[in-house]
């Protein structure tokens, strides 16, 4: 059976959940192999084996973070050459898609992004036009490179062989054309990433003020959720732009999405419509967001959300 490469997402020594989802998907397509780039510890390799990787290709080194994506493309390309893999799966995050894009050009391969599933023969499922249309796409040239959205499949870890292969990677001068001089963290540590979170709690214009977002954050923290925002809220400067959900923000596909004070404009829906379960709190019974919900409450979020937070905290205690 041919190998299927999975580009590993990891940070501070921990493998991100999406990696285990992709390893699960890879197992349905062939022999799952992980490609891990950057600061690689033995523990990291071991957890990839536990997550199902039969082979773990390692490109170890601190240089990978010093330049924008290109050195990682070179490492992934080396893994592809070493494995002769039948396909490559990457997480459909901003960086994952950029790595996939450059790898496609370098290797003369087709690329499909934002897949929500991959069937036998690397036929990708995509949900387009705000979730209204399901498309099947395939790659006709080279090795299929598919960027899969986090939360598209449930991770089912099953121990893999975990054979470690250290890659021989030659990072070129062209890979070093950019230099990362500083990393600035703005997100409150401890909250899951918006892209990956199983639960997302979002606030819109109805939140009313920057201070109002404390209510949204408290609910999110009680559920272990990420915080999102509508464009009206980020435009007003109430919440940072990187948390915007929608057409020109992030696309999320969590198990649960809770929209508070968000009307449900088509451009917002484009970023959250494939969420498995949707809840909305809005004082306008006519708000279009209610067309999407599994459960909705018509009323003032400033009363409902704190009560909900208290109930969640009490029931989880």
């Amino acid at each position: 059976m041919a190998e299927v490469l999975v580009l590993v997402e990891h940070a501070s020594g921990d493998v991100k959940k999406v990696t285990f989802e992709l390893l699960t998907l890879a197992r349905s397509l062939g022999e799952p192999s992980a490609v891990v780039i950057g600061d690689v510890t033995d523990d990291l390799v071991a957890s990839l084996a536990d997550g199902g990787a039969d082979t773990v290709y390692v490109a170890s080194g601190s240089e990978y973070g010093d330049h924008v994506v290109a050195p990682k493309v070179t490492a992934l390309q080396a893994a592809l050459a070493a494995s002769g893999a039948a396909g490559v799966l990457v997480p459909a995050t901003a960086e994952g898609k950029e790595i996939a894009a450059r790898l496609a050009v370098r290797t003369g391969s087709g690329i499909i992004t934002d897949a929500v599933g991959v069937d036998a023969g690397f036929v990708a499922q995509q949900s387009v036009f705000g979730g209204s249309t399901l498309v099947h796409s395939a790659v006709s040239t080279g090795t299929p490179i598919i960027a899969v959205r986090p939360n598209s499949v449930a991770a089912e870890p099953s121990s893999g062989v975990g054979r470690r292969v250290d890659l021989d990677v030659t990072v070129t001068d062209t890979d070093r054309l950019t230099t990362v001089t500083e990393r600035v963290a703005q997100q409150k540590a401890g909250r899951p990433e918006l892209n990956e979170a199983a639960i997302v709690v979002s606030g819109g214009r109805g939140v009313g003020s920057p201070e109002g977002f404390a209510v949204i954050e408290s609910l999110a923290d009680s559920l272990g959720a990420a915080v999102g925002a509508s464009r009206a809220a980020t435009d007003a400067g109430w919440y940072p732009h990187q948390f915007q959900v929608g057409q020109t923000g992030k696309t999320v596909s969590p198990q649960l999405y809770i929209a508070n004070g968000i009307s449900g404009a088509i451009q917002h829906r484009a970023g959250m419509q494939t969420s498995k379960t949707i809840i909305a709190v809005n004082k306008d019974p006519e708000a279009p967001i209610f067309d999407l919900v599994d459960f909705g409450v018509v009323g003032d979020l400033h009363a409902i959300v704190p009560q909900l937070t208290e109930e969640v905290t009490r029931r989880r205690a």
Partner: protein
Amino acid sequence: MKIVVCVKQVPDSWAEKKLNPTDNTLDRDAADAVVNELDEYAIEEALQIRERLGGADACTVTVLTVGPEKAIESVRKGLQMGADDGVHVIDDAIHGSDAVATSAVLASAIERLAPDLVLMGSESTDARMSVVPAMLAERTGRPQLTFAGKVELDAASSPGTVRIQRVTDYGYDVVEAQLPAVVSVVEKINEPRYPSFKGIMAAKKKPVETLSLTDLGVEAAAVGLTGSWSSVQDFAARPPRAAGTVVTDAGDGGTKVADFLSAQKFI
């Protein structure tokens, strides 16, 4: 300093979108066409850089698009906003091109125009792949400075340098490179201006060069549906979501949601 801004014409995001049943491509006649909104931020950023550098004597801004006849409207919009000239790559063979094929056409045009700086939106509101800027950097061997929330240019040094804030999930990275470079911008980097009446009148006299694939030395077989390395096989409308339960708050709205979460095993 020479800046080229890549723009794309897209269906208005308010409009209902459809795929064309005959060849599975986007039905571009079904919706009103507008400039991809994120590209307006790129045009605005180019105009602001030109102003900072001292105006038209120090810097020119060219708007470049690849697309059918109608796509000229997006070039015109850039000219109305204040860009100096335009380039429209038009060829019947391009219809149906995927991102890989489109980036090949754009790369050839960029090699021909040889700008110091390429600016573009970080994604289009129709395809939403966010891959063309990275592909363009790869193809042209230029540094990739993508997802910029801020752009600073030092044109006085030689070679010039560009520094951006690359927006990330956790905040941003500061990234530097030498010119020539490819920069993509995110929403909110600036406030795109509306064309003034004067701008609209002036745009009518601004030159727009039309280029074919032959002019660019791109093989027709390398683009369009045949030259694309991925394709849509089939599509189907998704069944609408089943209607949910909506209740009105009577002082117990939060508890009701908690009950629902318990029943669904979220808590």
